[in-house]
C-alpha cells in the first residue's frame, strides 16, 4: 500500500511538472471553471423562473446537485480524460506491450499514470459550492459524513463506466470518442432526477446510472436520502468496478500488439 501511494505520488508530480509549462493556460482553466459555474448557475435559475421550487428542490438544494456535478466533472478532466483517453493510443501504437510488462497492475497503471491539474479548479469550486450550500441548509456533520458513502460510490461508478468504454478500444480503435458520448449523457446529472420525465428517469437510472452520480449523493447530503438508494449505489459501484476489471482481462485476450 505504501509502495502504491509512493508510485502514484511520483506519477502525479511528474505529470504536474509537465503541465506547469503551460501556466497561462492554467490561468485560462481557472477562468473557464469560474465562468462555467456562473453560466451553470444562470442556467439553473432559468428553470426556477419566478418560483422558488424546481422539481421539488429549493435553490440551495439544487445547488448541492450542481456542486456534486461540478466536482465529478473536475475529477473527470483531472484523472479520467488524461489517463483513459490514452488507452486507445497505446493500443494503436502497440505501446500497451510496455504497460503490460511493468511489475504493476496494468489497470492501475493505465488509470493513474497521468494527472492533469486543469480540472482542479472545478473540483474546488464544486466542493466549495456543496459546503457553502450545506452550511446555509444547516446540514449536520453526521449527514455530511454519511453523504461521503454515495459520493465515493458515485466516483467509482463513473470511473468504471469510463474504464469499460476506454477498454473497448482494444477491439475498435476508431471509437475514441465513445467517451464523449458518456460525457454528454452524464451532463444530465446537472439537475436532480425529479426534473426529468418518467422515460428519461428510467433511462438515467437503469441504462446510464446518472441518478446515482449526483442525485443520490445530494439527497443523502440534504437529509432526504433513502437507505435503499444508498445501499443500491454502493452495490452498483462494487458491481461495476468488478465488471471493469473482469472486462479488462477479457479484452486483453484479444490484444495482439502492433506487430503480431
Amino acid at each position, binding site marked *: 500500500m505504501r509502495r502504491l501511494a509512493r508510485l502514484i505520488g511520483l506519477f502525479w508530480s511528474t505529470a504536474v511538472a509537465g503541465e506547469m509549462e*503551460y501556466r*497561462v*493556460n492554467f490561468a*485560462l*482553466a481557472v*477562468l*473557464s471553471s469560474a*465562468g*462555467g459555474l456562473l*453560466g*451553470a448557475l*444562470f*442556467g439553473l435559475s*432559468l*428553470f426556477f*423562473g419566478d*418560483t422558488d421550487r*424546481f*422539481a421539488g428542490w429549493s435553490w440551495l438544494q439544487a445547488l448541492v446537485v450542481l456542486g456534486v456535478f461540478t466536482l465529478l466533472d473536475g475529477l473527470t478532466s483531472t484523472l479520467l480524460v488524461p489517463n483513459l483517453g490514452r488507452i486507445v493510443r497505446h493500443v494503436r501504437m502497440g505501446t500497451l506491450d510496455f504497460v503490460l510488462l511493468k511489475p504493476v497492475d496494468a489497470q492501475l497503471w493505465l488509470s493513474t499514470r497521468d494527472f492533469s491539474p486543469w480540472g482542479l479548479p472545478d473540483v474546488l469550486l464544486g466542493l466549495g459550492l456543496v459546503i457553502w450550500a450545506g452550511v446555509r441548509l444547516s446540514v449536520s456533520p453526521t449527514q455530511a459524513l454519511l453523504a461521503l458513502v454515495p459520493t465515493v460510490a458515485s466516483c467509482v461508478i463513473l470511473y468504471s463506466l469510463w474504464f469499460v468504454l476506454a477498454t473497448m478500444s482494444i477491439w*475498435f480503435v*476508431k*471509437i475514441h*470518442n*465513445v467517451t*464523449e*458520448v458518456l*460525457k*454528454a*449523457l452524464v*451532463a*444530465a446529472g446537472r*439537475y436532480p432526477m425529479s*426534473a*426529468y*420525465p418518467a422515460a*428519461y428517469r428510467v433511462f438515467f437510472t437503469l441504462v446510464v446510472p446518472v441518478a446515482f452520480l449526483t442525485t443520490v449523493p445530494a439527497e443523502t447530503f440534504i437529509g432526504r436520502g433513502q437507505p435503499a438508494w444508498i445501499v443500491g449505489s454502493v452495490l452498483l459501484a462494487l458491481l461495476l468496478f468488478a465488471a471493469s476489471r473482469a472486462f479488462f482481462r477479457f479484452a486483453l485476450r484479444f490484444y495482439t500488439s502492433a506487430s503480431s
Partner: protein
Amino acid sequence: MIDARPGRLRRVVALLGVHYDEMLEYRAELVLWMLSGSLPLILMGVWMQTAASRPMALQPIDFARYFIVLWLVRQATAVWVIYNFEAAVVEGRLSQRLLQPIDPGWHDFTEHVAERLARLPFLVALVGLFALLYPEAVWLPRPAALATGLALTAGAFMTRFAVQYTLAMVAFWSERASALQQLWFLFYIFLSGLMAPLTLFPPSVRTFAELTPFPYLVYMPTAAFLDSPAFPVDVGRAALVLTGWFVCFAVLNRWLWRRGLRRYSGMGA
C-alpha cells in the same frame, strides 16, 4: 475568406469528394459524434417536465420542437477546425499542405462540409425516431421558413468556422490554442439559446446576449425554422449581424495567417 478565384473551384470540388469518401469510412465515429451532441435532447426533457408542472408562456410541445430543431441546427454547424489546425502546426504536418497548390484552409473547410453530407442519413433516421416517439410534435414548416432557416444555418456555420479558424491561428504562437476555444465555447453554451430559448432570459441578459454573436449561431436559425410567435426572430437583422461577424473574422483571419506563417517553423519549413 479564402482566396477563391475561378479555376480553384475544380480543386475544391475534388477535395470535397476526397473528404466525403474519407468520412464514409468512419461512419461509426460519425454516429458517436452525433450522440455526443445530445445535450439539447436532455434539456428538452427538463424543460418539457418544467412546462408540464407549472403554468408558463411556452407549452411542452413548444419545447419539444425548439430543442429538436436546435439539435439539428447544432449538428449542421458543428466545427472542430481548431483541433485539426493545432495538431497540424504542432506536429509540422502543415508543411505538406503548404506545398499543395491550394490554400490549406480549403482542406478543413471541405472536410467540414463533407462531414455534414455524410451525417445526413443518420440525422434523418434520428428525426424519424423522434417523430415516432412523439408524433404530436411533428409539423410541416412553410417553405419560406424552411428557406430562411437553412440560410441562417448556413450563415451560422460559416461564421463559426471563420471564428474558430481565426482562434486556431493562435497555434502559430502557442502550443495550446484550443484552450481559447474552450473559453469561447463556454459563452456559446450559455448565451446562444442552447440552455433555454432566449425569450425566457431576464430582459437585461437577453439584451446583452444579443450584442454578442452567440444567439445568432443557435437561437436565430432555430427560431427561423420554427416560424412561430412563441419564438420571435428578426431574420433580416440576424442575417446582417452574421454577415458582419463573418467578414470581421475573415479579415482578421487572413491577417493573422500571413503573420503567423512567417513565424511557422514546423518540420521542413
